[in-house]
Structure formats: structure tokens, C-alpha cells
């Protein structure tokens, strides 16, 4: 889909195709421009290339995992200010603590939220930015 200048761009990093397409479909309804990445390497190069307004990041990814992606984003000057929401089915307290230490903005466990909840969180983070 072509991006118009008023649209905010959201990068979805998700290796599961169905979850990715459902999320994209729901967010497009909110008039966001959607980009996707399916693994860690892909995510890092896309973030640096397009500098999205927000990143929805899964943790269990092929190759580099979400923690490494987050670390890279936060340690790169041009990308470190981008809001990142971890959106994963991992979610033990240790995972949450680790992500917080790496500077994540929010941590959502997929199974515990609906896509509507996610939209709410995204809107809030983008408005606060």
C-alpha cells in the first residue's frame, strides 16, 4: 500500500504469518502505514532504512531474537528514540525485566490482549511521542 505523508508508519516484526497478517489488517484499519519484518536481521535493516514511528517486536524470531534487535535499536543513534512495544508470547517476569532494562516502552503478551488493546497502546505511545 502506498504511504501518504500524514500516515504514521508501524513496523511489525513477527515470524508467524497468520498473526502478522491479522495484526497488519487491524492496524491498517486505523490508517497506519504498515511495514513488516520476519526475522531479526531483517528487522534491524528495515528499522535503519525506514525509521518507523513505532515498532511492534516479537521476541522469538529466527536468527537474532527480539532482545538483540531491541538492543541494536537502542544503541544506534538514529533509531534509539523510536517507541518499541514487545509483542510476544514469552512473558515470564524475567523476560519482562530484561526487556525493561533494554529500554522497551511496553510489553504485551499476545494471548493476554486483543488487537484492540494493542491499538490503544500504540495510539497512546505515538501521541506521547
Amino acid at each position, binding site marked *: 500500500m502506498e504511504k501518504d505523508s500524514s500516515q504514521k508508519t508501524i513496523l511489525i516484526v513477527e515470524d*508467524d504469518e*497468520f*498473526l502478522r497478517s*491479522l*495484526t497488519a*489488517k*487491524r492496524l491498517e*484499519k486505523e490508517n497506519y502505514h504498515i511495514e513488516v519484518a520476519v526475522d531479526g536481521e531483517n528487522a534491524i535493516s528495515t528499522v535503519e532504512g525506514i525509521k518507523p514511528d513505532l515498532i511492534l517486536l516479537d521476541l*522469538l524470531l529466527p536468527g537474532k531474537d527480539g532482545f538483540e534487535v531491541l538492543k541494536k535499536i537502542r544503541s544506534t543513534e538514529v533509531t534509539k528514540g523510536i517507541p518499541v512495544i514487545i509483542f510476544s*508470547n*514469552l512473558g*515470564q*517476569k*524475567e523476560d519482562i*525485566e530484561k526487556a525493561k532494562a533494554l529500554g522497551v516502552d511496553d510489553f504485551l*503478551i*499476545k*494471548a*493476554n490482549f*486483543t*488487537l*484492540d488493546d494493542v491499538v490503544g497502546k500504540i495510539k497512546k505511545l505515538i501521541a506521547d511521542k
Partner: protein
Amino acid sequence: MEASRHIHIAELSRRTVNPLIFWGIITVVLTVVLILIINAAGIQSGIYLLFLVPVIAYLVIMGFFVGYVSKLNRERNRLLAEQVREEGARAGEFKKLNQELETYAKQLFDKDFELTLANKRLQNLEQAKSKFVSVTTHQLRTPLSAVKWTFHMLLQGSLGPTTPDQHNFIEKGYESTQRMIAIINDLLNVDYMEADRSDYNFLPVDLLPLIESILFEFTNQAESKKITLKFDKPSSVLPPVAADPIKLSMVLENLLDNAIKYTPQGGQVTVSMSDDRMNSARSNLEVVISDSGIGIPPAERDKIFPRFFRGSNAIKVQTDGTGLGLFISQDIIEKHGGAIWFESAVGKGTQFHFSIPVHRLSK
């Protein structure tokens, strides 16, 4: 060795000639020799007796004396032999005991080795189980998320219109998925708890901000049921408790989740905290979570903490719940050295209390 010494002494005493007989023979021989000398010298019988009688008397008295000494000697030998025999027997017993001890020690060592091996195997098994539960549950959540989101989007009409009948069925599907997710989340928590994966990390924890942040997490859930969520803050500054903040949060979350879940629309849930240092030898802080909910039936009051228990009235009003929340909470509070208890009136509400020791340095 002791036995051979024993035989040696016995033989020695048997071979020794009785000194009384020995002395008798010497007396007779000397007397005869004396008579022969006197005869050969041609001495008269009067002088003869004068010599002979004292010599014989001397010999006889000496004989008795020697006999007495010899008797004492034999008695001493007998006692010695007896002692040696007893010691030999005792040594034998000691040797036997020593052998038994060695056997037991060896058996003990073998058992210890077996137990160590068995324990290691159990630990491996426990780790494997834990890993299995953790991986499968996380993996299960992924397809369940897909189902849940799909149902939700259908219910929202984002995927096109549905008939009221279809809507109804989709709603049931959505609720069932929610319940399954709740079960998986509880299983993960129990596994987390039982595996003792991370030991408790006790830190000085300030309860006030902890409770505030957890209450904040529950704002949406409470609002959706129009429940008033209140925090009665203590009037004075309270000392920090010794707690693992992650584990303690889990308890607060479980208790608040229950309170909201089992309180009807428009009800009230209140959290308060107090200091019971004045009236207790141990210094504890107490947290109370009270609701205006359905209450716990009196007959079920002693059953609510064991795992998988759910109140008969709870099942009627709420389908998602596994009966693991209070089990987990009790375990965590007890590992903190605190206590958890409740008061309840059916139809009026329940108050859950828990107490946690104050951090040592703050007493």
C-alpha cells in the same frame, strides 16, 4: 594371637612341678644323706637327734611356706589366664563389631552413591519437565492468540457482518479461548513456582509504590465492570518489607484479579495496608484487599487454598479460573515467612489479608 598366648600360659603352669612335692623329696633326700653322714662318722644317738630334729623341723616349715607361696602363684596364674581368655573373647567381639561397622560403612557409601545418582536423575527429569511445560505453554499461546484475535475481530465486525446467532457462537468460542489462555498462564506460574527456577531474591521493598503500580494495571479491568478501585493509603510512612518484588506482585495481582472477578458490576474493591509492629513480637506489615463480592461459602472455607479448588458459587458467575491463584499466593507468602488468611460473608464480600516481615535493617 591372644588365643595362642592363652594356651602357652596354661601349658607352662601344667609343666611346672608342684613345689610341695619337690620340697618333700629334698627333705627326705637331705635327711637320708644326713643319717648316712652321721652313721659314717660314728656319732652318738643323743647328739645325732640334736642335729637331726631342728634340720627336719626347718625343712618341714620351709616346705609349708614354699607350698603357700606356690599356691598363691598358681592362683595368680589362673587369674591371669582367665583375664587373658576374657580379653581374647572381648578382642574377638571387638573384631566382629569392627567388621560389622566396616560392612555398614560400605553399604552406606553404596547407598549414598545410589541416592546421589537417583537425585541427579530426578533433577534432570525435573529440568526436562520444567522446560517442556515452559516451551509448550509458550508455544500453545501463539495459536491461541490467533484464534482469540480472529474471534475478537469477528465479534467487532471487522471481518464483515455476522447474524445474531453466529455472533452468539463466536462469543462462546472467544470465551472458551480466554479460559484456555487463563489456564495456560496459571500452569506457567505453578511451574515457575515449583521449579524454583530463580531462588527468592529478598530486597527491601516499599509496598506503597508497588501496590500503586499494580492497581494501575487493573484500572481497565475494574472500569469495564464499573467497579470502584480504591487505595486507603496509610497515614504514616511505613518501613520497607523483606520481599521478592516479582513474587509479591504475583500475589497482589492474584488477589486483585479474584476480587474484581468475583465482585458484581458497580461494586467496590479496596486495598489498605497497616503496620502491626505495635501488637506483635515479629514486625510485619499487613495488606488487606476487600471486595463487595459474592463471598466464600462457609462449607468451603478450609478448601480454598489447595490447588484446583474453585468455589461452587464462583464457577456459576465466572468461567475463566483454574483454582491455582490462591495456591500460588499462599506458597509465595509462606516462603516470605508471612501469613495469608481471609474473612468472608456470602453475598457481602471477602477480605483477604496477608502479612510480610519488615526488612531487618528497618526494624
